[in-house]
């Protein structure tokens, strides 16, 4: 039966490259014998001395790692920042694209809203795990193939990669983008009525239900005008809790009627779908259109409300916020 010393030596040698084994085997045994002798000399029995000597040499895996100078970590401090930046970048970029793409496919194939949401969540989760695993694996391999003290595969950091920051006052570019966006929405709302791309028997077929021009479409134009006025007000005064509150109220004023109209099947013009040779009465299709409409409206409302609250909080704490589009890098 192998002694404790044998078992210790075998365990260390398992992790040592073949050419070094015979030499380390001999040295380790002679070193252990020296340590055992020292303990026997100070009054321990042979068994106690062997136990004490092996305790001094410690965990055999750690001993072997010390000999081969193998890293004792998956990703060391040299490559951790690059790993973390790349991981965040890919998660933020790929996960939403993949999840939304899958959800759209489910909508197109006529799944019910519950299935679509479940698909969205499981895809986001699965894709995130995949990205994290493969990115980490690549870094673990690089960590072990290159000299970590001369990481030539890592992007060199320079100060011009720093993102730009601005205090609560927004830039003229931000305001312009906001107003252009509101303008586009208003133009689409008016344009779908008079310049629709779908023509049936010489007449243009509006995309949205023409009956709602009696109240709701003009009402939405008013809301858009209020949005534009609000954007200018915020640009001049900066974000505050009051501004975030008004932002939520304006969002609700637009979202609630739209969702209600969608559930009542009053948003879209049925003739528009039939002019495209769609048959909206076909089983399930109207439900899918309703579900997609509600999801999009709710999503935009939640996104915009949270965005306003975050901006208000940043303004409150005096922390500058990152100017979007700057400092993008891997």
């Amino acid at each position, binding site marked *: 039966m192998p002694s404790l010393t044998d078992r210790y030596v075998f365990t260390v040698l398992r992790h040592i490259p073949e050419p070094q084994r015979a030499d*380390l085997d001999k040295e380790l045994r*002679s070193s252990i014998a020296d340590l055992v002798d020292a303990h026997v000399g100070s009054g321990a029995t042979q068994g106690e001395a062997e136990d004490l000597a092996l305790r001094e040499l*410690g965990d055999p895996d750690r001993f072997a790692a*010390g000999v081969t100078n193998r890293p004792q970590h998956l990703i060391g401090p040299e490559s951790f920042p690059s790993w973390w930046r790349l991981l965040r970048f890919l998660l933020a970029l790929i996960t939403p694209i993949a999840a939304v793409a899958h959800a759209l496919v489910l909508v197109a194939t006529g799944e019910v809203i519950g299935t679509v949401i479940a698909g969205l969540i499981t895809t986001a989760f699965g894709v995130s795990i995949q990205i994290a695993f493969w990115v980490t694996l690549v870094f673990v391999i690089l960590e072990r193939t290159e000299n970590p003290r001369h990481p030539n595969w890592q992007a060199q950091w320079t100060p011009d990669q720093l993102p730009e920051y601005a205090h609560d006052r927004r830039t003229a570019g931000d305001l312009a983008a906001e107003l252009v966006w509101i303008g586009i929405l208003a133009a689409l709302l008016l344009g779908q009525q008079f310049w629709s791309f779908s023509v049936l028997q010489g007449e243009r077929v509006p995309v949205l239900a023409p009956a709602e021009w009696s109240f709701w479409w003009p009402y939405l134009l008013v809301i858009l005008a209020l949005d534009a006025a609000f954007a200018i007000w915020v640009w001049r005064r900066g974000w505050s809790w009051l501004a975030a509150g008004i932002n939520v109220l304006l969002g609700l004023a637009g979202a609630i009627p739209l969702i209600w109209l969608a559930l009542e099947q009053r948003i879209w013009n049925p003739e528009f779908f039939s002019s495209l040779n769609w048959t909206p009465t076909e089983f399930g299709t109207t439900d899918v259109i309703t579900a997609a409409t509600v999801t999009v409206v709710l999503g935009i409302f939640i996104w915009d409300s949270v965005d306003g609250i975050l901006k208000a909080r940043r303004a409150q704490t005096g922390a500058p916020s990152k100017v979007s589009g700057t400092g993008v890098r891997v």
Partner: protein
Amino acid sequence: MVLHMVAETESSSHLQELRRGTVVLACLLVLRRASYGYALLETLTQADILVEANTLYPLLRRLESQGLLLSEWDTSESRPRKFYRTTPAGEELAETLRVDWARLDRAITQIA
């Protein structure tokens, strides 16, 4: 009680950090005269340089693979022993480390 223990482990990790490089310097200096693992451990302990067996043995092999130490088996006695000796490259490194050690000592004394 708990707070005291935390402070103790923290200070011991700082001490470890401070001592890490000094063991290399001490080995390179002592091994200008050839010696083997256990004798070196004894010499260092007597010189009040605190190092553990599980640090020293792997370190000797690493320094050898870096060309800072040279080894030779002595089989003249009943127990064969691997003797290590500092190479010229090792002596050069020892000198560099020693100069820096002196500089650090001066610097710390000055700001203390």
